[in-house]
């Protein structure tokens, strides 16, 4: 259970951190909360030569909201910071639903939202709600900054488009549109402190009793958080009534490509995708009605 050996740096500024990442290219890892990295390291699944801890960089821990720019979450904002934030509680309930089911108090006091994304577990609870709400991420390196949709970030289990020399500096979520709503539903063997067996994030926009927009992302049923494009297509343009939603949830079940593992069988996961997606869409619909223009 002992950790492997590594070099350690805790830079106090972003430029200092970026320089370090350029210099130590071989086996360098950025660490924020470390709650996933420490477990992987003690199990021998991760052996970094150098760790750059970005938690001592003061200007990365923030959560900001403005109606025109939307929500911006700095990369060392803790999961417990997210849960306490009044703007996120008021305008982004789907994100709260995801974060409050993650881990326990102790881990939420250490772990970061950006870290949950960079760890790139297919079951990452924060990914589906952020993806359906149209989140973007900022990646910064000594060569400059790029901003891309979170939809394009994940490449496989534990694999993302982020280069080792890059730091995820922020997560951006657009302001909630009128007549739109989002929700996240998940199921696991235990109600808390457990990894999701299935997660489903839904975002809908309903105007004149028709779905004019829909995004559905499924967690833990594919190598990456999976965008259910056929499910979205079944919703967009369709009239808003129960049958549309029930039919879409059935399509989501077919779109899911789960495996069997210790947490659930593939068969069970497919069945639960239908249930979770149905519940998520219905709740997103309710929230969209609450935000009618």
């Amino acid at each position, binding site marked *: 259970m002992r950790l492997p050996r590594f070099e350690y740096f805790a830079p106090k500024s972003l430029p200092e951190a970026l320089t370090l990442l350029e210099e130590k290219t071989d086996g360098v890892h950025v660490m924020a909360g470390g709650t996933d990295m420490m477990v992987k390291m003690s199990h021998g699944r991760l052996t970094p030569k150098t760790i750059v801890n970005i938690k001592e960089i003061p200007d990365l821990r923030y959560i900001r909201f403005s109606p025109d720019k939307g929500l911006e979450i700095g990369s060392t904002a803790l999961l417990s910071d997210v849960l306490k934030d009044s703007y996120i509680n008021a305008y982004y309930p789907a994100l709260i639903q995801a974060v409050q089911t993650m881990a326990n108090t*102790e881990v939420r006091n*250490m772990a970061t939202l950006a870290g949950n994304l960079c760890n790139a577990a297919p079951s990452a609870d924060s990914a589906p709600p952020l993806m359906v709400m149209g989140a973007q991420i900022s990646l910064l390196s000594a060569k400059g900054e790029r901003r891309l949709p979170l939809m394009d970030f994940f490449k496989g289990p534990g694999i993302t488009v982020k280069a080792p020399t890059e730091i995820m500096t922020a997560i951006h979520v657009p302001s909630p549109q009128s007549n739109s709503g989002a929700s996240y539903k998940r199921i696991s063997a235990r109600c808390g402190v457990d990894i999701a067996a299935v997660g489903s994030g839904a975002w809908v926009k309903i105007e004149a009793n028709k779905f004019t927009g829909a995004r559905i992302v499924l967690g833990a049923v594919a190598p990456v958080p999976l965008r259910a494009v056929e499910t979205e297509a079944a919703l967009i343009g369709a009239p808003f009534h129960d049958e549309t939603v029930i039919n879409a949830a059935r399509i989501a079940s077919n779109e899911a490509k789960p495996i069997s593992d210790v947490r659930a069988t593939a068969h069970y996961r497919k069945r639960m995708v239908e249930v979770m997606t149905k519940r998520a869409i219905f709740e997103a619909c309710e929230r969209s009605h609450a935000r009618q223009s």
Partner: protein
Amino acid sequence: MKHNIKFRVNGDDYSLAVEPWRTLNEMLREDLNLTGTKLGCGTGDCGACTVLVDGKAVSSCLTLAVSVDGKSVMTVEGLAESGEKLHPIQESFIKTGAIQCGFCTSGMEMAAYNLLSVNPSPTEQEIRKELAGHLCRCTGYNQIVEAISVAAEEMKNLRPEEEKS
């Protein structure tokens, strides 16, 4: 290469040279001999290693010792300030029979301390939710929940009159 770090534990200042791959749990138990903090799962699931860093409950098994440089740590040994008279949380754990084998106790007590510092009068549901990340293999959960309720009452009675509302 060892890093020289300065930090505070239970009010005492320490200066120590630690290897970067040493966890806070290892440093507390092996270098400082503060063995009240336990190591259970080592993966942040069981809560036995809970300590407070700068006033926030964290898992010491998932914390690098070097990362507490300049910070203040509180362990179960810091609950009884004088080193003799027990904290009301510890007293209530004894009184209600919340301690069986004792391995989860220090983590449970630190979680209780953390909870009561932000929420002095938690409901039973709130206590249960907070303890979701703490495992007791003797499964004496009911007594632990009761102990925390009793401690909350005791601590309210100990506070000066004017603070009560």
